[in-house]
């Protein structure tokens, strides 16, 4: 007898009040959840939209590889960087990508600790998004060194013939440890979450080779209560570890800036402002990925409007924390009475990069205000459009922080101008391709929604006393 035969299962928290969307649409049982999520991978063929997306993404990724190959041959001279703007696109993109990853960890760790059951259907692919975003992010500082094959000697405390070590009083080395720890912990968290679902994949696969592959990956998971107990314990501990970790990563990234004396960088508001911006852009990416995925695979009953609406609310909240950062930054520049700080402010708004700056304000502060209306929060068109706008806005913010502060600092004789070259653009757009390629491969080969956690949302998962 399967759970299905016990009549129509109703989802927990059915929409009692009008206007509240369910977390999972009614009519699901344990069996239909397993079946629906696994069939996307093992039964249904490859959708045409997937193939088209993969073709474009893979092409872009190869454009990036070409640009990087040329970079290794010629050196960082092919980029727009020079003195005084030595950081350029590489650091802009690094900060932007790593910020995007933060929403995945927020969903999987912080919302888990807060027992927010609405995270259950979006955590898996948000965590995958984190991993791929951190990969894209990590690429940039490495290629920015110009000779990444030597980077291990500069970044890691390895014994060298000269006997020198990395400088542990420098935020740059803190960043190496923060980002590599973040990647490793995110990978472990994601993998632990996958193990029971891989066992479900093994047991639901129609073909022998599929059962072999998922069987090896599931490592012999058989759902024993003792195993589940240790698993839950490990998962909770990982969530507890990832929570301070995710807040620390962008804090440490912001130290790269705020520990310097450059006007516009040397401020105490940077850590919280960076973290809020990271979550802001990360949720935008979650929505940008969720909307096409649920449409192509027909997963609207699992990734419901409730998830999208909650994401929109979080974007509105974090967007205002970022907005507060802008306002406070401007206020401090004026109130400090420091002429260099004040010049930085007017240079942002009226200087050569004013168009970038005003686009940033439009994208990050003005357009997202549509989320005050329920209509925009529950319309996939508005959600998708606004999230794209936020992603652009957050990228522009990183650009303004890195470029505008550096190009005119203290002494006018050392001022300069920065313009990205075609290689800068090719590398940046190429990482979008790389990110999408990896994400599409993930969708094709692994369960994109956590099967075991979705079952916990059903009322029949509760043990009656």
């Amino acid at each position, binding site marked *: *007898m*399967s*759970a299905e035969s*016990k009549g129509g299962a109703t989802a927990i928290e059915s929409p009692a009040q009008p206007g509240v969307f369910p977390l999972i649409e009614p009519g699901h*049982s344990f*069996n239909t959840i*397993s079946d629906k999520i696994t069939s996307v991978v093992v039964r249904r063929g490859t959708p045409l939209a997937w193939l088209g997306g993969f073709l474009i993404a893979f092409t872009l990724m190869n454009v990036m590889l070409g640009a990087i190959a040329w970079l290794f041959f010629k050196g960082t001279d092919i980029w727009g960087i020079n003195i005084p703007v030595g950081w350029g696109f590489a650091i802009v993109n690094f900060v932007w990508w790593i910020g995007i990853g933060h929403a995945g960890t927020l969903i999987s760790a912080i919302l888990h600790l807060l027992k927010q059951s609405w995270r259950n259907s979006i955590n898996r692919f948000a965590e995958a998004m984190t991993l791929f975003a951190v990969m894209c992010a990590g690429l940039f500082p490495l290629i920015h060194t110009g000779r990444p094959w030597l980077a291990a000697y500069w970044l890691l*405390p390895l014994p060298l013939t000269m*006997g*020198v*070590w990395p*400088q*542990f*009083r420098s935020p740059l*080395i*803190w960043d190496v*440890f923060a980002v590599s*720890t973040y990647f*490793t*912990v995110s990978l*472990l*968290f994601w993998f632990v979450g996958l193990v*029971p679902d891989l066992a*479900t994949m*093994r*047991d*639901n696969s129609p073909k022998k080779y599929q059962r072999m592959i998922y069987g090896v990956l599931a*490592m*012999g*998971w*058989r*759902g*024993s*209560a*003792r*195993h*589940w*107990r*240790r*698993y*839950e*314990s490990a998962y909770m*501990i*990982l969530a507890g*570890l990832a929570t*301070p*970790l995710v807040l*620390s990563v962008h804090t*440490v990234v912001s*130290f790269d800036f705020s520990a310097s004396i450059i006007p516009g960088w040397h401020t105490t508001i940077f850590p919280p402002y960076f973290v809020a911006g990271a979550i802001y852009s990360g949720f935008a990416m979650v929505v940008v990925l969720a909307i096409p995925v649920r449409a192509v695979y027909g997963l609207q009953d699992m990734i419901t409007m409730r998830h999208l609406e909650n994401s929109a609310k979080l974007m509105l909240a974090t967007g205002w924390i970022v907005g507060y950062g802008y306002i406070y930054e401007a206020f401090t520049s004026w109130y400090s009475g420091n002429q260099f700080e004040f010049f930085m402010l007017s240079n942002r708004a009226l200087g050569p990069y004013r168009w970038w700056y005003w686009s940033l304000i439009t994208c990050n502060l003005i357009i997202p205000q549509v989320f005050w209306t329920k209509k925009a929060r529950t319309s996939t068109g508005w959600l998708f459009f606004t999230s794209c706008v936020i992603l652009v806005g957050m990228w522009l913010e990183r650009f303004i922080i890195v470029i505008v502060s550096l190009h005119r600092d203290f002494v006018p004789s050392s001022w300069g101008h920065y313009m990205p070259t075609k290689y800068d653009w090719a590398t940046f757009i190429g990482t979008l391709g790389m990110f999408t390629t990896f994400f599409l491969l993930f969708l094709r080969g692994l369960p994109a929604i956590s*099967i*075991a*956690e979705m*079952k*916990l949302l059903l009322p*029949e*998962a*509760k*043990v*009656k006393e």
Partner: protein
Amino acid sequence: MKHPPMFGYLAEFSTPTELVEASHRVYGEGYRKIDVYSPFPLEAACEAIHFETRLPLVVLIGGLTGLITAYGMQYWISALDYPLNIGGRPFNSWPAFIIVCFELTVLFSAISAVIGMLAMNGLPLPYHPVFNVERFSAASNDSFFLLIEAADPLFDAKTTPELLRGLHPAGVWEVPY
């Protein structure tokens, strides 16, 4: 290695509530070599067989190892092996070392949580007798199983399956090796 002719008996239940009740009964009868299988975590089932994990202790030890490693490494590098005067700061600039200490504590804790969980669970395990029961593939899907091992001192080839059948399962299977 010589072992009994079979691994044990497996009973299938279709709801978590039935499984938890059955586990209480079997544990109450005095069976200890028992196991419970479910497609998602069931705290009540774990309580029914009186199991608690010591994984947090493993993680604590891992985390402290990370902390000591991080501080030791930074102290040795910056104060002992190659002391460098950076802006007049002390060689042992401990406030600057906090971040790497934090990161390695988290890293070592996370690795010990995952490796500890897998090792204590005895995974990866390529073969386990319960998989010989064809119906067991539903354990990762929508069904709930209770296993009594033949190695249990109370196990009896006649009374044990009778006990399981008395719990109104959806089915009872002999688990061969």
